[in-house]
């Protein structure tokens, strides 16, 4: 450690050996060296939940130590949309006051992981500051769903149709299906 010129990221040899890791951290704190600790986020089916608990325990044990969380083990190794995973993981990071996130874009389904992480950290930071749930502040992490997907009922669309004077088609979708209309026709 004495030779280190940059700030090292300290990881455990074995993530489940918490006490050993704490001892190492205590030793480093005594040496008064700058470092970042990463207790390792494990992939789902390989101890994910326990690894979240370990971050939680670590933060309780060391309130002032800077922590990094590498979120690639979740986003890269889960075939689910990364926007939602980023929201959840940055929510956890925000609650645990994790200082750094390591985001990766290796798997092709992760090719927006960094910008999503950027949105997620801002959404979580701001909503935490105002003690509100991470809702109604940004649509950036809503990729598959709209906040209000169907703004007009079929009755309202028919009313709009009665005012249409030109031949251009309007296309709307609501719970009843797809509606297409111009001055002459209303197709459903």
């Amino acid at each position: 450690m004495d030779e280190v010129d940059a700030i090292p990221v300290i990881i455990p040899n074995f993530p489940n050996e918490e006490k050993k890791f704490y001892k190492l951290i205590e030793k480093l704190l005594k040496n008064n060296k700058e470092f970042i600790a990463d207790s390792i986020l494990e992939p789902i089916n390989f101890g994910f939940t326990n690894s979240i608990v370990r971050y939680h325990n670590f933060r309780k044990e060391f309130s002032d130590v800077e922590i990094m969380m590498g979120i690639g083990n979740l986003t890269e190794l889960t075939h689910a949309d990364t926007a939602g995973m980023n929201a959840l993981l940055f929510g956890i990071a925000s609650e645990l006051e994790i200082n750094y996130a390591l985001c990766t874009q290796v798997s092709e389904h992760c090719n927006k992981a960094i910008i999503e992480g950027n949105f997620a950290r801002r959404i979580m930071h701001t909503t935490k500051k105002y003690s509100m749930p991470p809702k109604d502040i940004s649509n950036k992490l809503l990729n598959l769903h709209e906040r209000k997907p169907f703004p007009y009922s079929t009755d309202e669309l028919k009313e709009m149709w009665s005012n249409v004077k030109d031949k251009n088609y309007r296309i709307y979708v609501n719970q009843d299906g797809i509606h297409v209309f111009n001055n002459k026709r209303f197709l459903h």
Partner: protein
Amino acid sequence: MSIDQIITQANMYKEDGADVIDIGCLPSTKFPHLVETIQELKRKGFMVSIDSLDEKIYLLGQKLVLIFY
């Protein structure tokens, strides 16, 4: 990846909001231009971190990074 390719990608990540560019090294893949890559990224104003399984990475001269696992 060549240094130019790395710089291009780093610029894209920065635009997407990345604060630090992490250079990830694979155990079995040679990366002879690692030092030069870091120097070039630093020259361009990036903050850089490095992730490697090598026990020691000495950057002679500038002493930029040295990581122990």
